[in-house]
């Protein structure tokens, strides 16, 4: 009990806390000594190839699977010792919507709302509000068997958010959705970022992860192999920023003019690229030098580097 009390008092520091979490199935290690914490107000994206251990991690956090070794605390409660308390505080969007297709939206949400401890009025108010937010108020009266794929996914998301949990675990939240619905869900997730709520998203959609997540954890074979903000990961794994300079004239001779400031990596007829660890200092100096020699500059910009580059670098290593 002592550890629980301590962790409950430390809720403001970490809403999710994993310490050496390991999960084995019959000799196969799905999650291997994962240590990680997610603070309230934070959105963590779990990235990784299929079978990397993302869903298993989420299932442990939802107190469905028990850790083989290590500890997992959610909202201050141990997933092994206080599984029910954890489940009350977690909203889980599963990989598949898993709806009861013979039921109507109203009955379905009423069922889950009651299991989560909501009374009928509160449940209906929350359910209608969420359905309206996802642009499908008509789903309330319809049998779920008649829903489109996207509607089913959104209904599953409503189910996960119904009891307004402090921890949201979203496994592939926008899979099977059309671009409009996916944007709607992304906007909703962004709006759910709350100073008392932690959100974990498992996704293969790297652009989505980059757009939503405050931090990203890349998992491979059950281990976290990279963890940080998107910017940190890019800097750490892809090296210094790459700048592209476009000139009015051919680059002949310009390379020599700036060779003391930067090392040119690649060049074309009227453009060149260089890497710099400190663009704030390097770029103004470079522009001053070029201006002093009367070299006309069209643009100086950072070459965009996607999270995909980071991901592929890490996973392929």
């Amino acid at each position, binding site marked *: 009990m002592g550890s629980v009390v301590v962790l409950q008092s430390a809720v403001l520091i970490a809403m999710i806390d994993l310490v050496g979490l390991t999960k084995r199935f019959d000799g196969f290690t799905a999650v291997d000594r994962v240590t990680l914490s997610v603070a309230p107000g934070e959105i963590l994206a779990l990235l990784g190839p299929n079978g990397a251990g993302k869903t298993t991690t989420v299932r442990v956090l939802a107190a*469905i*699977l028990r850790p083989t070794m290590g500890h997992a605390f959610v909202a201050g409660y141990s997933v092994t010792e206080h599984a029910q308390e954890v489940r009350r505080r977690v909203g*889980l969007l599963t990989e598949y919507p*898993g709806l009861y297709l013979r039921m109507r939206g109203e009955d379905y949400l009423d069922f889950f709302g009651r299991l*989560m*401890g909501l009374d009928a009025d509160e449940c209906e108010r929350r359910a209608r509000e969420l359905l309206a937010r996802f642009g499908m108020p008509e789903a309330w009266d319809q049998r779920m068997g008649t829903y489109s794929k996207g509607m089913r996914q959104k209904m*599953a998301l409503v189910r996960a958010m119904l009891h307004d949990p402090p921890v949201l675990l979203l496994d592939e939240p926008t899979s099977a959705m059309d671009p409009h619905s996916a944007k709607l869900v992304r906007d909703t997730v962004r709006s759910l970022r709350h100073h008392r709520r932690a959100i974990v998203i498992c996704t293969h959609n790297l652009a989505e992860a980059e757009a939503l997540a405050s931090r990203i954890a890349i998992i491979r074979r059950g281990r976290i192999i990279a963890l940080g903000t998107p910017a940190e990961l890019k800097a750490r794994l892809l090296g210094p920023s790459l700048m592209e300079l476009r000139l009015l004239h051919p680059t002949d001779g310009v390379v020599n003019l700036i060779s003391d400031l930067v090392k040119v990596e690649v060049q074309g007829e009227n453009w060149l690229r260089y890497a710099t660890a400190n663009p704030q200092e390097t770029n103004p100096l470079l522009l001053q030098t070029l201006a002093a020699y009367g070299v006309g500059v069209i643009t100086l910009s950072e070459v965009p580097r996607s999270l995909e580059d980071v991901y592929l670098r890490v996973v392929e290593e």
Partner: protein
Amino acid sequence: MVAVTERMRATVGEAPRLVLTLIKREVWDTLRDWRIIVPIVILTLFFPALMSFVANMALDWVAEYGAPIVGERMLPFLLMVVGFFPISFSLVIALETFVGEKERRSLEPLLATPLTDAQLYLGKTLAAMLPPLLAAYLGITVYLTGLHFFKGWSPPPILLVLVVLLTTAEGLVMVSGAVVISSQTTSVRAANLLASFIIIPMTLLIQGEAIIMFWANYGVLWWVVLFLVVVDVILVRMGIHIFNREELLGREIDQLNVASLWRKFCGYLRWEPWFFGLDLQKMPAWLRWLGMVGGLYGRDIPAILRRSWLALAVVVIGLLFSAGIGYDFATRYQLPPGVLQLENVSAETFSELPAVDWLPVFTVWGVLLNNVRSLMAAALLAVFSFGTLAVALLMAPLAIVFFFVTQAAYVGYSPALFFAAFVLPHGLLELPAATIATALAVRLGAAFMSPPRGMTVSDGWLWALADFVKVFIALLLPLLVLAAAVEVRVTPTIVAWAFGG
């Protein structure tokens, strides 16, 4: 954030509320599946009405041929049938209950709710039982109403209570068994195949009940009800013990990993070397085998016996009960005078016993082989009967022994001397060996019902099997060899000395 309604939890009581919510949804779902509802309605309303009509016609018809007794016996039988048919649907519903949800991917959201494993199990079990059971009661009502109007026949109240109890207990057996199957399989197809383990015994039971109904010995059916209640308790306990959400979700395919199972089994067979606290590393290499022997007999086997105490207690109680049965039968069925004549018994009398087919050849090898075979059969039967048949198999010869001990007393011999001469010499070795072997066999069967805490069913069973194999080879086999030698070489001499002329 929305606060969870504490008041609601406090006033209604959370556990029953959660279970009722689950039951309500499950029943609701069942009632919206026309593939279940149409047959239930037919079996609840149409079929009992038809049975009532048929019974009415049949009564008149058999009466014309001077056999009214056939009609009289048929009415209670049909009462049982109209009750049983609707509850047969509970099997279909229960088989589908977990594995069907798993196949439709709707199980994981349910497992993520605050429902405990026991609440999930209970809710699903009751939900699978309620609609078919209510349909069965309705069917019985329709049948009896029809007969009342057609013939003015009503069953004796006790018979009605008996049939209702029988129907309920049968329903619970099928549902609790099917829920166990459903929670341990990964596809509805596999669950349906395994359902044979429920359907076949139930079919045999119903046939037996039909015979009893025509025999009109309704008192026997109370024993059937008692038996079913015991099976219900075992299955429900088994279900609660082995049901856990991790198993439900963790197992994706029914894969039999023989290599992994074998490794586990070998791991359970191992034991720590020990020899009276001595540092084995400091002992000469050629003496280190003593550590293995000391570890096995000084530590490991006693530990196995300690953890088998409950099974041992069950076997001992069974043996005491068998003594009572032997005594009871002996008092009711006394042997005719002259059958038990021991004056002319000699050591050679025993060697003539092979003339009786079912007895083993009276040699050390023959007796040993018979004992080993019996104990192996007990272990095998235990696996299929939650351990009960292993105890029954040991009780049978003990009941026979006490039957003859009591008969000996009736014809004037000392029962203590009879027991001491015929049983005790080899029994001192054989009885403990058989008791321990049976207890370990009981554990083999009970592992399905109640695996040790923290273990899966397969791990618990492999552990029990390793214990059985280890103790059987290291302890019981030597005891049985000695017992067989004493039985063949010593017991006849003692019997001849005690009773012979």
